[in-house]
């Protein structure tokens, strides 16, 4: 096989991988055009790289997201494009920190964009030789200190619509303890009816991307306080049905949550009945119930 053929084959594999990622993201988001965070790292400008440099980048990035959440593309000129529907600026910073021991400070040659991507744009992005194609609304590098994800109008505006159009119920559980999170999610027998997040940042990402019918939100989260997450979500979705969870069952915490817009409060340890009761009270779940797609949950005594 000639070098040209091999290169063409490599590009086809890259494009196929990126397109598969795009299709999956579109399907998950139930919107026509994916809005992705795109990180561009210009490795082409580095004078020397090891033979395994790209494998090293992939290994470092895998700590930020799984294959399902993101895709890493090595362009023809060795620049690397990281596509993700979930990675945040904070996550991007962490990626650069992990790469620093191998490549030095990459900040000067890195840019984070938020782009509405469709298939042709994606193709251009993968095979382009110079810079990321200019797309309307693209957001060049912003302050690295911003830790909350930058969310587009498109995704936010369609949130309520996506929720009401979806037939199946969706319940999101945010709790940093994996065991407790899994236990809560077991209230719904179908795992596909649940979303689970362990940090405040991923909670916001997941909420906006998936538009759940009810959100159970722990107050004590490792990165952002649950109260802040609540306020942020309510700004984006004033109708959000959020139930707070906390082991601090004091009056002040409860009042603060309810005043901020939470629809309920569950003290820990949570009970099966309490979780089920709030799921059944969610107006979005009730609307689905009238359409005959109520979650498959059983009263247990």
């Amino acid at each position, binding site marked *: 096989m000639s070098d040209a053929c091999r290169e063409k084959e490599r590009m086809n594999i890259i494009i196929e991988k990126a397109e598969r990622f795009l299709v999956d993201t579109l399907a998950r988001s139930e919107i026509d055009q994916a809005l992705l965070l795109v990180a561009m790292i210009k490795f082409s400008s580095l004078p020397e790289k090891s033979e395994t440099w790209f494998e090293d980048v992939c290994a470092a990035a895998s700590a930020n997201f799984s294959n399902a959440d993101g895709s890493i593309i090595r362009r023809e000129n060795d620049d690397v494009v990281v596509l993700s529907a979930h990675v945040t600026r904070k996550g991007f910073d962490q990626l650069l920190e992990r790469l620093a021991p191998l490549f030095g400070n990459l900040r000067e040659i890195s840019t984070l964009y938020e782009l509405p991507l469709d298939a042709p744009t994606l193709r251009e992005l993968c095979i382009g030789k110079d810079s990321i194609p200019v797309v309307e609304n693209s957001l060049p590098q912003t302050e690295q200190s911003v830790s909350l994800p930058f969310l587009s109008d498109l995704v936010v505006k369609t949130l309520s619509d996506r929720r009401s159009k979806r037939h199946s119920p969706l319940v999101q559980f945010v709790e940093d*303890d*994996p*065991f*407790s999170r*899994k*236990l809560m999610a*077991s*209230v719904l*027998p179908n795992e596909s009816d649940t979303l689970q997040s362990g940090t405040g940042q991923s909670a916001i990402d997941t909420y906006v991307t998936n538009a759940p019918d009810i959100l159970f939100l722990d107050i004590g989260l490792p990165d952002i306080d649950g109260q802040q997450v609540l306020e942020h979500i309510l700004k984006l979705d004033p109708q959000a049905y959020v139930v707070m969870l906390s*082991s601090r069952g004091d009056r002040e915490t409860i009042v603060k949550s309810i005043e901020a817009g939470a629809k309920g409060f569950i003290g*820990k*340890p*949570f*009970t*099966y009945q309490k979780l089920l009761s709030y799921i059944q009270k969610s107006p979005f779940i009730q609307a689905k119930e009238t359409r005959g797609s109520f979650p498959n949950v*059983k009263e*247990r005594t």
Partner: protein
Amino acid sequence: MSPVVMDWDRMVLFTDGDPDEEKELIDLFTSCGDEILLTLQQACGSFHNDIWLEAVHKLKGSAANLGAEHLANLCTEVESAKNGGIAVKRALFDKVAAAYKDLCIQLAARIAA
């Protein structure tokens, strides 16, 4: 009346008695619990209370959600003795580790049954 080591009725409410689901949850609890216990053990020798308290708080939450009443109560006791110094912490850690071990024996027996 002393608290029970494990309230299985609580667990059954969540799992509906499905043994595979119980096993999955128990495995997750013990893998998180082992990590927390290790953190707690390492934090015993330090005057820095934050790591110690955070670990105890996590274990208390997991244990209470699981239905492990005795371990959860013990963790509450440990939280309230936060300014006890290294010797007190070591003694409390031994109590927590023993309770955790007893619980793990019960959990393992349940899986094996």
